[in-house]
């Protein structure tokens, strides 16, 4: 009998910006692009202020259940910044940083969580998919879109985000497998925030990393510090470039932490310790980028004050627009079911309209 090794795998981890705001290793080119660094920082701050306002709206009965993105800002914003406008994004449901960068409006996000059909209009973002709540289904849509781009010879990439829990779903593996077989222009980002509602990563998988799930599909898998906007931006940019050049799909596991409850309907204190959250808080993404900017004398207290004020103003304007939406038309639930309303639905539509607005 002879035993030989037929394949060997390893997963690399990348991180440049420490929680203290210091750069380590050989940082990517954007580390010396002050304008881009400041744009990334501004968007991360805007997202956090928006997020906090959305939670406040929910707590005061002005919004439905809301899924916070607290702690994920670097991962989400870096993805948006790395993508080209003609690429297409397939979100799960808390990637506001990516969406705002790509032209989705804050008032639309509020309308979605406010139970208003008009929230998914994306009036300035005609390409991207709406939120996918069922978990992992969107990864197949990304693979399908990538297949369309490849068959038509378009230099576009489909980008999707999935959580750590989502990687347990069959659709996730099926999408990676398709992307491997067809060598699709797709980027799969796993935003590993350590918790799938109440289930910690160690109860989700026996894998040492989630990036290694790529290996089974014949794709490269890379781990990055998801709270390091430089590392995420570099990894996603490289994966996009590779996909655009015909080199196929990549999987990037961004290690981050869900600092919030799963949604406003959840209470994370039931299943995780305050100490764990406090430790994670020390590694959160925004403070470390600010410390870098300040150390490089690219950012001052006055800049910070002006930014916070500007973000609060933008969020206030968005909240006002959302609140001015009023009630959606009852006919809305019928009118987009089919391109042309079938006779049987036309009768139901008329009956519903004749009822007048329901209470409650």
């Amino acid at each position, binding site marked *: 009998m002879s035993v030989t090794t037929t394949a060997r795998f390893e997963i690399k981890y990348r991180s440049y910006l420490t929680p203290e705001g210091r750069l380590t290793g050989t940082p990517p080119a954007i580390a010396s692009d002050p304008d881009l660094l400041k744009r990334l920082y501004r968007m991360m701050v805007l997202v956090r202020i928006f997020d906090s306002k959305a939670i406040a709206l929910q707590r005061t009965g002005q919004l439905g259940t809301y899924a916070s993105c607290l702690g994920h800002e670097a991962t989400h914003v870096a993805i948006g910044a790395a993508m080209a406008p003609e690429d*297409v994004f*397939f979100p799960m449901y808390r990637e506001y940083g990516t969406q705002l960068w790509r032209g989705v409006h804050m008032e639309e996000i509020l309308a979605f969580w406010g139970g208003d*059909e*008009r929230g*998914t*209009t*994306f009036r300035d973002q*005609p390409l991207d*998919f*709406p939120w*996918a709540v*069922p978990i992992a*289904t969107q*990864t*197949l*849509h*990304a*693979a*399908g*879109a*990538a*297949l*369309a*781009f490849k*068959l*038509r010879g378009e230099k576009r990439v*489909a980008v999707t985000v999935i959580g750590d829990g989502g990687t347990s779903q*069959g*659709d996730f593996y*099926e*999408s990676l*497998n*398709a992307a491997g*077989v*067809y060598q699709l222009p797709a980027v799969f980002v796993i935003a590993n925030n350590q918790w799938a509602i109440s289930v910690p990563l160690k109860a989700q998988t026996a894998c040492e990393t989630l990036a290694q799930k790529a290996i089974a599909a014949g794709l490269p898998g890379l781990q990055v510090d998801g709270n390091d906007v430089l590392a995420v931006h570099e990894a996603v940019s490289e994966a996009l470039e590779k996909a655009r050049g015909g080199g196929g799909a990549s999987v990037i596991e961004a290690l981050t932490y869900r600092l919030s409850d799963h949604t406003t309907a959840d209470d994370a204190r039931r299943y995780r310790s305050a100490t764990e959250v406090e430790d994670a808080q020390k590694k959160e993404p925004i403070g470390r980028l600010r410390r870098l900017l300040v150390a490089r004398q690219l950012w001052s207290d006055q800049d910070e004050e002006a930014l916070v004020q500007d973000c609060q103003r933008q969020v206030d304007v968005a909240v006002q627009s959302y609140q001015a939406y009023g009630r959606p038309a009852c006919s*809305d*639930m019928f009118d*987009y*079911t*089919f*391109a042309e309303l*079938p*006779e*049987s*639905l036309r009768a139901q539509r008329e009956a519903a309209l004749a009822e007048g607005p329901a209470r409650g």
Partner: protein
Amino acid sequence: MAKVTLVEAVNLALARALADDPRVVLLGEDIGVNGGVFRATAGLQERFGPARVLDTPLAESMIAGLAIGMAAMGMRPVAEIQFSGFIYPTIDQMINHAGRLRTRTRGRLSVPMVLRAPSGAGIHAPEHHSESNESLFAHMPGIRVVMPSSPTRAYGLLLAAIQDPDPVVFFEPTRLYRLNKQEVPDNGQPLPLDTCFVLREGGDLTLVSWGAMLHETLETARWLAENEQVSAEVIDLGTLSPIDYETILESVGRTGRLVIVHEAPRTAGLGAEIAAEIAERALYELEAPIIRVTGYDVVTPFFKLEHDFMPSIDRIRRAAHQVLEP
């Protein structure tokens, strides 16, 4: 013009769609090099190339999910599910995304895909190959469900399904795949998806059915005419969702008697839906209770019992007698 079987008519329609519309792409398990396990896609990869006719990995949710992504990006994917009992993994993708993407983007994105699948029993197939699951899909908003019952309608309805701007689940009755031949002109003409087809006119009772059961239903109508001078109107539902009730109501208004025949299990089958709608809208025009002749509420049996499960001509005839002499 050559006569073709139903499965050949499907092949003809797929070839026509591939030739006429560069957005059309076929995908499925074993559909390329092998030409499909039922031969529905025979020769198509050879003719149109592997970029138009794609063999996929073995994963049905993936097939549906890929088709959704492709369709939303402007293609016209026609996906094949290999056997009827293998369609269930697609349900999540179909109900949660295919049927609702237009609504969830207020018309910004849509899913003009076709999910083709074989349907029904009667060909001595192994387990999970003989299911009639159209009701599951007919219950999904935003999705059309279509089932042809002849080569001509297979050709025209499949072209219509491919051209339709919304998702269509297209069930192909395997028992009819090679049962008989018809002259089918390859003229690229679709048939309408918003109307039933009156296959036989009659004034004494109305028989409504779809797919393979129309074979037995038409046989029954012929028997009644020849042996009892009873003229039965036979309606092929064609599009199972949304249903064209006007044609059925018009017929029942004349006959006052309705029998619905389907192979799928009885409870929550489409027969119940049709019976309820006709009762609501035309009860006082009925001369007799509406009768359903259906498969039983049992696990689709192995093939030695499949003909005991499927409605027989005898059962349909008894139902006809019941409504004629209540």
